[in-house]
């Protein structure tokens, strides 16, 4: 990555990096100070020790985790066969349809989506009260585990999950892999499960992480439909204990950070092991090297 930089350009880089570092670190550090340095109490770790005993914390966290895992499972279960079918059949029309279908959710902001969902949910008591469908409407809104949130979250995650799977599938010659496996006597399910999926591990992990992060931090849909997963709970708790909610916010950031670092570490080891580097930046430098040599 040798780059010709005129010597005079150097100082601005330090200024930019310094200012950025300040802007991005100060709120985190200040939030930390806010939680441990409570007015009239001095230094205390109470905000952190009382998290687990806080009213409703465990319920909200478990609900969010449950919603997250269900969303990931359903999103992959729906998208994977479709994305594989596009690759295996080479049907241009199917690809175009899926491309549009999986881009559409980006056009509808969560607030607008929830406005639509709320309207549909109101049809239940308004028009369907006397039909068996009404039971379904009640069931999907069970506050213990609101399936309607899973439906909304899968829709919202669809663009990211589909794109990440698509990118993963493009980097492998799926058809040859499947044909080789089939020629060697593997059944269709076995060819998919033990040959194709391992090759897609990075893409699957990536898609799962994106979907999980989306659900764990999601506030808009849940709040407006009146459910109380993690993010909604934080806001609710802030009314009675500001320190506590800031502490939980910080912890949730750290948690996301750790998840992402683990994921990056997985990418790294894979990149080191296989010649085909999944990281775009690495590909690029390889390509540049090749061109420079030619």
């Amino acid at each position, binding site marked *: 990555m040798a780059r010709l930089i005129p010597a005079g350009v150097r100082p601005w880089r330090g200024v930019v990096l310094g200012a950025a570092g300040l802007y991005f670190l100060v709120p985190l550090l200040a939030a930390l100070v806010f939680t441990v340095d409570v007015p009239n109490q001095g230094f205390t770790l109470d905000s952190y020790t009382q998290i687990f005993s806080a009213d409703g914390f465990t319920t909200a966290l478990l609900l969010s985790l449950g919603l997250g895992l269900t969303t990931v499972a359903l999103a992959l279960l729906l998208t994977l*066969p479709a994305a594989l079918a596009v690759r295996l059949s080479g049907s241009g029309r199917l690809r175009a349809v899926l491309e549009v279908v999986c881009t559409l959710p980006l056009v509808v902001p969560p*607030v607008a989506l929830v406005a639509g969902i709320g309207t549909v949910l109101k049809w239940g008591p308004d028009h369907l009260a006397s039909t068996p469908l009404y039971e379904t409407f009640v069931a999907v809104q069970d506050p213990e585990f609101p399936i309607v949130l899973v439906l909304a979250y899968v829709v919202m995650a669809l663009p990211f999950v589909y794109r990440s799977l698509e990118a993963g599938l493009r980097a492998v*010659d799926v058809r040859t892999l499947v044909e080789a496996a089939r020629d060697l006597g593997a059944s269709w399910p076995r060819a998919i499960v033990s040959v194709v999926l391992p090759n897609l591990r990075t893409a699957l992990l990536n898609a799962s992480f994106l979907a999980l992060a989306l659900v764990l*931090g999601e506030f*808009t849909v849940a709040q407006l439909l009146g459910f109380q997963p993690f993010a909604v709970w934080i*806001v609710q708790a802030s009314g009675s204990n500001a320190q506590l909610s800031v502490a939980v916010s910080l912890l949730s950031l750290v948690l996301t950070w750790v998840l*992402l670092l683990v994921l990056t570490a997985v990418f790294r080891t894979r990149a080191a092991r296989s010649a085909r580097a999944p990281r775009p930046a690495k590909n690029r430098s390889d390509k540049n090297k090749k061109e420079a040599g030619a």
Partner: protein
Amino acid sequence: MTTLTTSSSPGVGDALDARRPRRRGPRASGSWLAALPLLAFVALAFGLPAVAMVDGAFTVNGSYGLGNLDQSVHGAYRTALLGSLKLAATTAGIGSVLGLLLAQAVVTSRGRALREAVLTASGVLANFGGVPLAFAFVATLGNAGVLTTRLGLDRHGWSLYSFWGLTLTYLYFLVPLMVLTVAPALDGLRPQWREAALNSGAGAWQYWRHVGIPVLLPTLLGGFVLLFGSAFAAYATAAAMVGSSIPLVTLQIADALSGNVLIGQENVALALSLDMVLVAALVMAVHLPLQRRSARWLA
């Protein structure tokens, strides 16, 4: 980022398609069958609410009409729409410039560790919108915030719960988003182009004017509209931070949906949602072709 990964092996399968046209019949129908659950799901979980939204937006007192849409662009709703547009344009503009500067600073640095750290951090922070972000800023610059009280900012008229407070907060996830968008493009500026320009007697300014900026322009514009769309659609941060003290279209919709203002405003909320969809659709209509264009140049 996803489009760039694909350039590593542009369709191994595509080449095969051209070489051996396969038995399309059974294969093709089978593939539609595999995609059927997804399509059915989207029709149910996305199509139905979308239809309900459009239907409600055009329904006035039981019959179809434009009353709600008309109402949604007048009075307080108009203020909210304009407020959202102003906030989105401001934050996207500042965010694009700062993101570009930061990305260029990182990309041109020798240190591989710095680069990795900034890109990883950007990945996390770009998703750090919503409630935790709001609380981090409230703890820092809110009325009882650490910086506000220690530096006495409130005496100088600072308030986080204002347009500029919200702008400062939004930039926290918009700048990283821009870094992620533009860093691959900056990487794609080949050193050879610069060398060629400098060898032909061009100055640094001329290089940027005639080579750098034109190549980057689709990415920059695409990034700008992406940031614009994110800021326009954001709700959680604003709701957790300012309540409804700043007129924003998302806050208005939420208020109308929960019947906070007046009963019977639900259909106006749907009309406002439709306004938002139109803006978002416009954003995507600009962003997607630009993304494809920049991918072509920088492949």
